[in-house]
């Protein structure tokens, strides 16, 4: 461990940079990197190479080869490139490869060289061809910027929501700019370009000349520019070897450096760390690598072979034919601990632990020293943090051991940070393995989040590892294992060499009833791959029938969809299918389908009742439902304005009712037709509204108006029962106040309703005089009630006494008031006493 800082290179007073090997590359490249188009995805992503691209001659034997490797150089996939001339390769944020052709077409491939889709950068690009292209990432997603042969810029900020923007023209631009970059400031994407000694800024609408502050006038023409990972910093390299470093807003200079190398560098990228004050750029020439920052000195490395720089969030990856290295600034925690002669608490704790292992009493001394300063918690935290920045498991372990050792001497040190770091490192070490080849640093991992990391493992089809990680980190099933299994299943259905049964069975075996698994999604994927039968088989495993329906509809299995929808109990779903079927099938078949599904049929009827009444009729006609058909006609008769129309509709109803063998309804409807016609006559004859009255009301109105003959006629014609007619007539007469007619009527024949109603109705109209006339004619049983109604208590008492009915007597008594009806009360009491005696 003594030589631990051997690869640390100081830059200025405070910062150290180190470069170490991530992998020895497995790819045994024959070509030089400079002969290939190279694209490496950030966050330890895959590397795409297009070999032979440089050769212009189009001999088919020497077709360029597109190859994709893991960061450790393991070949993931390769295809011969058969499409047009490629200008640029780049990776999207979701690790899809963008292949930008000369004609402005962008082809999208996945990690395994499988074509996904393509889009075009527009007509202007097509005509003028792509000169240069850049792929960039902003909060909007992955964008593409194009410099065309006409020296114009076109860009899109999000390839998934393609909106092409053509940037304004740079006035007087005759030759391509020497260098350019895409900047993102305040959510606006702009292009910075250099032509000779001039810098231009292109935003959506305008082009402006800019000058970086503090730029020495003798600096010369710009050759290279570099934008930092977070778009905050900008570096410019001029032909005098001068490097200007500042904010990308061009409002402030951070530092400058004179490299005194005049040849244009091959690449220049920023090397920064989040939350660090140190800023430095890494500049690469053919055989030389330079780290320059806020210092007059710089760090220089010799490059043995052709290299390619990949900027990362917290450093730079350096790719070459044989190795893959990482160059970064040493984080503070590591510096504190490992810096020579450091007395930082973390350093002392590490020392103490080492001594403890040697069983030396020095351990105690070191420990005391930290404890005296009360810095033990800080020491532990430092060790934990520093462990995260280490690549070598051995170093990680010794730091974690130190932390664990220090923890023992602290009361209630919260264990989460330690446990979490152990888990994270375990995951990181697993994915850094060269077989997996994702060299994520701790900082990158935290930025990326575990969910995205899992996605990336899934993309690489590393399902077992992903599942192990989920289980290890105890992620919830829905977020973790089930999701990955679902992805696996989606991949599985694409294996065309296996039979539908086999695949469905294999998937069900593995997935079972794992919560959060959506079989319908997997089935959808199977359908997308053209395996309808497999999709249907998979849907059988879907427990939620509701989920099965949309896909079944898409696959044109409408009838199956209908029964599944009904099974689900979700009527809304049934509606969806029914209305879908309606458009898909011809009417006859549609109705036939519904006949077998009463639930769906009644739903559709409901819909038609409000929306398509005509269809309703067809529906009833189809299944000879004459009863409903009759009802339908009756219903529609209401909306007929003209009486002929109404009669017509009712006549249809009559026919239908007869067919339905519902004679009652037919008869009633016929009566209604008769009544309607009669009412029209009445209306004409008397010039009063009679239409739409019920039979009862019609007759009643006739009597009220004194048309007794007409009323009599209706009574006979419609065979109105005697009882009703009598009730009707006397109440109408009483309302009219035609007491004379009423008396005449009462004597016309024996009343079928008795005479109590006469009494009641007269009393109701406050005519006691008339009421009294009828009271004696009431049947003996009701006579008491009648006399009480007319207010003749004396007679009531007599009647009650005559009946020898105690209840009636009591009833009469309850109506008497002591003061006025003394005689009656006495009479009743006497009679009651007599009754009781017996």
């Amino acid at each position: 461990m003594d030589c631990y800082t051997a690869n640390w290179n100081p830059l200025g007073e405070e910062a150290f940079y180190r470069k170490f090997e991530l992998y020895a590359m497995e790819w045994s490249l024959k070509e030089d990197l400079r002969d290939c188009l190279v694209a490496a995805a950030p966050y330890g992503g895959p590397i795409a190479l297009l070999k032979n691209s440089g050769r212009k001659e189009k001999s088919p034997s020497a077709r360029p080869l597109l190859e994709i490797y893991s960061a450790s150089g393991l070949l993931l996939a390769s295809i011969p490139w058969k499409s047009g001339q490629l200008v640029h390769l780049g990776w999207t944020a979701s690790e899809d490869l963008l292949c930008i052709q000369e004609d402005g077409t962008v082809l999208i491939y996945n990690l395994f060289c499988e074509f996904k889709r393509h889009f075009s950068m527009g007509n202007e690009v097509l005509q003028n061809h792509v000169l240069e292209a850049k792929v960039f990432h902003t909060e909007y997603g992955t964008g593409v910027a194009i410099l065309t042969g006409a020296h114009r810029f076109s860009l899109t900020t999000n390839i998934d929501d393609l909106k092409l923007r053509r940037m304004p023209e740079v006035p007087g631009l005759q030759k391509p700019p020497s260098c350019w970059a895409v900047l993102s400031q305040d959510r606006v994407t702009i292009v910075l370009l250099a032509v000779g000694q001039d810098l231009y800024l292109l935003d959506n609408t305008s082009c402006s000349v800019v000058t970086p502050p503090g730029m020495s006038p003798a600096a010369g023409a710009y050759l290279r520019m570099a934008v930092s990972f977070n778009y905050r910093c900008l570096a410019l390299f001029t032909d005098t070897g001068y490097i200007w470093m500042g904010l990308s807003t061009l409002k402030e200079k951070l530092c400058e450096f004179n490299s005194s190398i005049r040849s244009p560098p091959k690449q220049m990228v920023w090397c920064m760390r989040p939350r660090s004050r140190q800023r430095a750029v890494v500049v690469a020439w053919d055989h030389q690598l330079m780290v320059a920052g806020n210092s007059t000195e710089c760090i220089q490395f010799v490059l043995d072979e052709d290299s390619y720089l990949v900027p990362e969030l917290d450093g730079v990856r350096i790719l070459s034919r044989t190795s893959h290295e990482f160059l970064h600034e040493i984080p503070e925690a590591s510096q504190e601990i490992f810096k020579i002669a450091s007395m930082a608490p973390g350093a002392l704790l590490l020392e103490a632990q080492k001594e403890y292992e040697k069983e030396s009493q020095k351990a105690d001394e070191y420990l005391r020293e930290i404890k005296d300063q009360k810095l033990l918690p800080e020491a532990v935290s430092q060790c934990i943090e520093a462990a995260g920045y280490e690549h070598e498991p051995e170093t990680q372990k010794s730091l974690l051991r130190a932390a664990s050792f220090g923890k023992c001497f602290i009361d209630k040190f919260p264990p989460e940070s330690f446990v979490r770091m152990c888990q994270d490192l375990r995951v990181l070490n697993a994915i850094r393995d060269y077989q997996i080849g994702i060299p994520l640093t701790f900082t990158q991992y935290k930025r990326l989040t575990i969910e995205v990391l899992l996605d990336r493992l899934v993309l690489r089809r590393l399902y077992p590892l992903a599942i192990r990680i989920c289980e290890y980190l105890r992620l919830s099933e829905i977020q973790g294992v089930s999701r990955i299994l679902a992805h696996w299943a989606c991949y599985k259905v694409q294996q065309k060499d296996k039979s539908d049964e086999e695949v469905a069975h294999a998937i069900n075996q593995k997935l079972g009833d794992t919560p959060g698994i959506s079989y319908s999604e997997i089935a959808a994927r199977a359908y997308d791959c053209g395996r309808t039968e497999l999709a249907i088989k998979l849907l059988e495993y879907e427990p939620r029938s509701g989920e099965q329906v949309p896909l079944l509809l898409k696959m044109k299995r409408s009838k199956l969809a209908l029964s599944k929808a009904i099974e689900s109990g979700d009527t809304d779903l049934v509606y969806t299918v029914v209305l879908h079927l309606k458009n898909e099938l011809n009417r006859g078949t549609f109705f036939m389908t519904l006949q077998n599904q009463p639930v769906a049929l009644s739903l559709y009827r409901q819909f038609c009742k409000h929306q398509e009444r005509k269809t309703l009729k067809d529906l009833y006609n189809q299944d000879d439902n004459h009863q409903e058909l009759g009802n339908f006609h009756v219903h529609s008769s209401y909306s007929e304005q003209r009486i002929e129309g109404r009669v017509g509709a009712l006549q249809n109803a009559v026919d239908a009712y007869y067919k339905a063998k519902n004679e009652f309804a037919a008869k009633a409807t016929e009566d209604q037709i008769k009544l309607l016609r009669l009412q029209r006559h009445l209306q004409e004859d008397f010039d009063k509204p009679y239409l739409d009255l019920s039979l009862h009301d019609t007759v009643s109105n006739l009597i009220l108006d004194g048309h007794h003959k007409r009323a009599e006629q209706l009574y006979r014609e419609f065979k109105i029962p005697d009882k009703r007619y009598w009730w009707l007539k006397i109440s109408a007469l009483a309302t009219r106040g035609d007491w004379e007619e009423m008396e005449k009527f009462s004597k016309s024949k024996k009343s079928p309703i008795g005479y109590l109603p006469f009494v009641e109705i007269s009393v109701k109209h406050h005519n006691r005089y008339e009421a009294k006339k009828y009271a004696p004619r009431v049947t003996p049983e009701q006579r008491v009630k009648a006399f009480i109604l007319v207010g003749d208590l004396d007679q009531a008492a007599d009647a009650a006494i005559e009946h020898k009915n105690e209840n009636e007597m009591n009833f009469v008594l309850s109506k008497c008031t002591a003061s006025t009806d003394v005689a009656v009360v006495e009479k009743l009491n006497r009679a009651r006493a007599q009754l009781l005696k017996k």
Partner: protein
Amino acid sequence: MAFAGRRDAPEPPDFAILKRLARDQLIYLLEQLPGRKDLFIEADLMSPLDRIANVSILKQHEVDKLYKVENRPTSSTSDQFCFLVRPRIKTMKYIADIINADKMAGRSRKYKIIFSPQKFYACEMVLEEEGVFGDVSCDEWSFYLLPLDDDIISMELPEFFRDYFLEGDHRWINCVARALQLLNSLYGPFSKAYGIGRCAKMSYELWRDLEEESESDSQGRKPEIGNVFLMDRDTDYVTALCSQVVYEGLVDDTFRIKCGSVDFGPDVTSSDKSIKVLLNSQDKVFSQIRNEHFSSVFGFLSQKSRNLQAQYDRRRGMDIKQMKNFVSQELKGLKQEHRLLSLHIGACESIMKKKTKQDFQEMIKTEHSLLEGFDIRESTSFIEEHIDRQVSPIESLRLMCLLSITENGLIPKDYRSLKTQYLQSYGPEHLLTFHNLKRIGLLTEQSPGETLTAVESKVSKLVTDRAAGKITDAFNSLARKSNFRGISKKLGLIPRVDGEYDLKMPRDMAYVFSGAYIPLSCKIIEQVLERKSWLGLEEVLRLLNGNEFSVTESAGEDSPAWESQRIILTVFLGGCTFSEIAALRFLGKEKGYKFIFLTTAITNSARMMEAMIETKA
């Protein structure tokens, strides 16, 4: 009535959170349309909305003007319209008309439709057909449950009854399932579920599916409600068809309680304006008389007014300090009570007036003989006279239905003549009403020569033959026989009368119908809870057409110590009446249960009949 293990009924859980949830979601939805907007509210959502969020809350969230759906906005200048509606096709057309009119006039506005409680695909379809689907944005206000009182939760879906039982439309079942899910997540997990009826079964199954899908972790939670009992309205139409005689039921029958409040008109308030009164347990007077038989209400009220007077009278002989105390602390309460008292007395008088006029006693007598099955001829002529005299179309219809359902259908002669009489009285459009009543099984014709036993054997054959059972299931209402007489005998629904039934000190649930009849629905619940299963009720179930279930959710955790085991959520699919509520409250008091009522809507005989009536419009 001394009950051996009588315990006090546990307190019901607090349902105020349901209101809060609904309000918060509504506010969130309103905020989704920032800026000032006009709000159009569906007529039958107005009262429920009022219980959730009053106008000032709406105004706070930038609601400008309020319109009732139906009314055409005269000339609104607002450039944002928000519609708060039930998912109905009719309403969709109304909205489409407004939008299309705006388009014609060249106006552009933002339109947002908030469906309550959920959106239906058919609605979107209509919007699409009317060509406005692209102009609106749609949202759902999952306002499934409105707590009307401490123990009553209503879904406020009166159309459930007609849609499901008449039209066979299952669209609301999903809502019921979601409501159950919500209650289960807040107050569950329910450990035991009973049910009877096809809809109950479907709702239950759908709810279980939802629970499985959501897999919310209810493990280890202490439930506040232990049991749930689902019942289809068509299990017991008889009870719903009877005239109500407990106070709350009478008020509902007479004045129509709407969403827990009632409008007392001038005849009650003895002034020239009507007063809207919230009827719930907060009303100190009402809460004491709501469950009482009407005959004892008057006595109670006069006693109460004497007490009140006595309290007022204490003023005499007070010194200044006591007087000050009295005025500041008691007077307000007394005045409030006084106001309520006079309102309820007014209501009673008004009820009395109305009821005596219509020969209420005669009608009750007829009802009772129908329930008991005596003097059917006499009852039939009473009904006939009732129709002939045009007393009330709804009442006549109700009596006809009651006759039919207690007698397993009318004999053909009566069936024809009563219908003819009715059509002559109230117009031929009721031909369609009769068709509806026949379909739903409320007014049917006895097949000639078919005795009760013949029906029974036929039904039992259908039940055993599963395939046939399935077919009848689909159109169950068509083939449905009520078998009321048989059920009544088996369950002893008609109490044997020995002497006068003391309505002030009721001895069983029959008191809600003057001691003449124990409501069937409540009796079933009582029996099942007593047995903790359907065991021993096989005969009754056969007559009821089956479809019963009982499921224990959490195995073996029947620890009686838990209060929640004595709290029972009774779910009435298709509505329940205040008489049933009163009866079950009585049962709860007797046996130490607490019933929580969840109903698709509060119903009564008139509402049921109106749902069946086919109007001309």
